[in-house]
């Protein structure tokens, strides 16, 4: 197998990897800005310099020539090489900044040049704290600057499009954003304008940067030149907690991170998963965070007189729920699952009601024909359509659903905005007694008789099956009235949780929603109805599903975490597509 020596250590490699990627893959580090593993390597930042040599081979025999000490004779490249564009060859010898003063010096030189026209406004820059330029300057940059003349001034606060704002002075011209629109999203909306130290990325005159994936350029920008117009100046990176989760606005199951501070989700960013979305996510999905904070239903509500809902106690809500059920036969009850809710929630609902005597479970798919593309957007607007189907819910058309509601006396509706997305009219929900388990206040929840608040994806650990039959899970990022960061072991600890004092960790109790997970609600209802159902944590529920439903065989939270999601057996894209 071909070998390479990096800083005196021998590595084996296969194929033709590029040097920088190989170094990074092997847990070593070389600073870089313009390189991105998903895109072409333009080698324009000149930061990833290394010293490279190849062994001298005898032309006839192909054997390595040896010096008097029996060491291979190395022919060094006369210039420093950019490791991002360097193709590895057998026997290559590489010195990074770790083992060569010369390389460290070259990197420092480049860094000095990158910084001369950079405004160094880190204290007011959104990127500070997660800025490759800032981090690598501290690690590899020069101390101080010899630049005593005037910096170049360039346009600031340029609204490139509806979602992205440019500060051209911070730009270091790595062209990652330009290459993203050329190579990944294919819209070609950005280019570099002007020349030399005056150049910066911009759209064609009069054009908007409205690429459906435009915010990815903000993520890959190695400085604070491109910022999200929505997130700008909202929070410092180090004040936030980062929690892995799943996008709930589409069927692709894009892996995301939820960034929370003070119990509010402030932004979503893509999380790398090579099997799903790699480094990217659609702009559409990023705005989902507002649903986790705004218009949340806190405490149950009940229709008291006419159409007016008033807040009520949990006891009264459960009692009313049970009484309404006890007043009718199970066949008069319509239970609607939801592709917008997780596997565990749908399972708890189904199990409780089937124990009580209901046999048929429906759900209404949420599909917008023609919405998807061949990248990360799907026609399916719900994150868990395949999961609900695999649990045994029946996919029901609008007509059938309306008929079923008409003939039912009690309707139990799991978090699904049927009225808002135009499946039902609020008039349709007038006749039966409708109990909705909902996260947000919507036209749908307003049209129902009893509203019981449940946790949203940001508040519970639960799993979702994407259009390709891949099951992935979320982790709780926000506390509810009944959970606590320090006590819920699934919750991530941010820097402030770990190191902050109580004064740093200002927590606004108003941001905590009074809601419970569906399975806990089902526990309470089951207890009141005298049913033999008892659910533990969502982790235990998944174990139960895995042992009882063959579609979910072998699934567990541990495995999902280890493997970044599991492809369910017997499910492939064709089968589960809606």
């Amino acid at each position, binding site marked *: 197998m071909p070998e390479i020596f990096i800083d005196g250590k021998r590595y084996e490699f296969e194929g033709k990897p590029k040097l920088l990627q190989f170094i990074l893959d092997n847990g070593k580090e070389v600073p870089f800005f313009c390189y991105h593993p998903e895109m072409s390597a333009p080698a*324009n930042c000149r*930061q990833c310099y290394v010293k490279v040599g190849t062994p001298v081979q005898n032309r006839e025999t192909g054997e390595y020539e040896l010096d008097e000490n029996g060491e291979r004779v190395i022919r060094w490249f006369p210039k420093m090489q950019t490791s991002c564009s360097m193709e590895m060859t057998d026997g290559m010898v590489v010195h990074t900044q770790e083992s060569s003063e010369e390389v460290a010096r070259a990197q420092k030189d480049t860094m000095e040049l990158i910084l001369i026209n950079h405004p160094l406004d880190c204290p007011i820059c959104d990127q500070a704290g997660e800025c490759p330029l800032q981090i690598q300057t501290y690690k590899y940059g020069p101390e101080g600057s010899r630049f005593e003349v005037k910096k170049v001034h360039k346009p600031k606060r340029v609204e490139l499009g509806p979602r992205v704002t440019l500060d051209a002075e911070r730009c270091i011209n790595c062209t990652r954003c330009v290459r993203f629109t050329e190579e990944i999203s294919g819209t070609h909306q950005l280019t570099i304008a002007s020349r030399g130290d005056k150049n910066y990325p911009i759209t064609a005159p009069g054009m908007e940067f409205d690429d459906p994936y435009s915010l990815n350029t903000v993520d890959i920008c190695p400085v604070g030149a491109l910022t999200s117009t929505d997130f700008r100046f909202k929070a410092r990176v180090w004040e936030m907690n980062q929690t892995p989760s799943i996008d709930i606005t589409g069927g692709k199951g894009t892996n995301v991170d939820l960034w929370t501070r003070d119990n509010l989700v402030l932004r979503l960013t893509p999380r790398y998963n090579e099997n799903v979305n790699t480094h990217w996510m659609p702009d559409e999905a990023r705005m989902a965070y507002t649903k986790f904070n705004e218009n949340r239903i806190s405490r149950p509500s009940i229709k008291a007189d006419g159409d007016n809902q008033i807040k009520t106690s949990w006891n009264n809500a459960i009692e009313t729920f049970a009484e309404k059920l006890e007043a009718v036969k199970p066949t008069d009850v319509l239970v609607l699952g939801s592709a917008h809710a997780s596997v565990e929630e749908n399972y708890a609902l189904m199990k409780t009601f089937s124990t009580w005597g209901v046999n048929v479970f429906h759900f209404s798919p949420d599909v917008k024909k023609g919405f998807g593309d061949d990248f990360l957007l799907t026609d399916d607007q719900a994150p868990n359509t395949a999961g609900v189907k695999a649990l045994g819910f029946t996919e029901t058309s609008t007509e059938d659903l309306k008929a079923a509601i008409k003939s039912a006396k009690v309707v139990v509706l799991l978090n699904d905005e049927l009225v808002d997305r135009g499946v039902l009219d609020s008039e349709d929900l007038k006749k039966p007694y409708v109990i909705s388990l909902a996260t947000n206040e919507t036209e749908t929840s307003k049209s129902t008789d009893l509203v019981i608040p449940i946790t949203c994806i940001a508040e519970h650990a639960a799993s979702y099956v994407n259009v390709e039959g891949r099951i992935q899970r979320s982790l709780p990022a926000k506390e509810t009235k009944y959970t606590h960061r320090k006590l819920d072991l699934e919750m991530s600890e941010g820097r402030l949780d770990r190191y902050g004092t109580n004064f740093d960790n200002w927590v606004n109790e108003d941001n905590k929603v009074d809601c419970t997970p569906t399975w806990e609600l089902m526990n309470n209802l089951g207890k009141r109805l005298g049913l033999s159902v008892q659910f533990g944590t969502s982790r235990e529920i998944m174990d139960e599903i895995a042992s009882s439903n063959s579609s979910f065989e072998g699934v567990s939270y541990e495995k999902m975490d280890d493997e970044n999601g599991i492809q369910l057996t017997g499910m492939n894209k064709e089968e589960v597509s809606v």
Partner: protein
Amino acid sequence: MSFDWKSYTPVIIPDIPNLHEIDVYTKNGGYDSLKEVLSDDWDPTKVVNEVKAANIRGRGGAGFNAGLKWSFMPKPDGGPRYLACNGDESEPGTFKDRKIFEYNPHLFIEGALIAAYAMQCSAIYVYIRGEYYSWIKMMEKALKDAYDKGFIGKNILGSGFDVEFHVTGGAGAYICGEETSMLESLEGKRGYPRVKPPFPAQKGLWGRPTTINNIETLSCVPLVIKNGADWFSGIGAETHPGPVLYGISGHVNRPGVYELPTGMPVLTLIEEVAGGMRNGKKLKGLIPGGSSTPILRGDALEGVNMDADSLREAGSMMGTAGMIVMDEDTDMVEMLWRISHFYHHESCGQCTPCREGTGWLEKILLKIRNGDGEIRDLELLIDLCSQMEGRTICALADAAAYY
């Protein structure tokens, strides 16, 4: 040198009236070399070998053997192959190719066609700097005439060899004279130099094998075919032979383009050919081959000849033979600042050391020029140049740092 330059007869831009007209050109033996090459006596390999033997060293600045460069083209695989002709000529001090465009465009066209035949190219692109608007128009006219006469197009002169010929105007960027950014520009993109490898011979225009030659280099080709490689390599300096267009500018009495053999003593060129220093001043400095070649001191030019070896010994390069002569009144700081201003203005901005370094250099030099310089600025200048040299994708930063 005992060579009597006054008896030399120009061959690249000979003294024939209206030679730019195709009828005049053909009447004077024009396109005969093309006809000969396309006859059965010749095949592409033979042309390449002949040109290689003539040792035409590239006139665009690098001085690389043109025939050898042609032989780097991979074997034809049925796909398109290109010849790109570099007429960007934006190097300060260089103005020789415009003479060819103006006085003998068909010589260049013929040379390009022979080159295309030798490398079995399917299309030729000539990239002319945008400021040469009238010469772009002239070239278009000359190409149309050549098309009409059947020298370009399908089945040229009944030989079965097809080639298309296109003219592209630049948009005023110096960097588009760098061969790979010229390719980018030809493809309609921003003129950013490419990372090498892959070299253009492997992946050039639209990812296909491409050779890039200077206009003057290609103009030598028909002469080599007509007179033989030995004739060509017998002219001028032994290691750097042939006729060459010297573009002499600056503080001389008769600036202009002079066609003479290579290896001319620098002082003969200045004192005799260009009519001596203006107002009888003393020579202070000389940039021998366009602004990208290192400057030589006026008192160190004795015995220096205009060929690659002699100039290397003296510490400079042949470049494009665009000589900038400066007299004793020249303010060297001003000159240095002006050149660094040029490189700052023309840096494409693709890679860091050049983008940031050229601007910094200019700002320091401006400070010195304005009389605010400090000794540490000199140290910084030297340091900066070493930070830029050899650290970029193309050679612009190297050129900027030579000063």
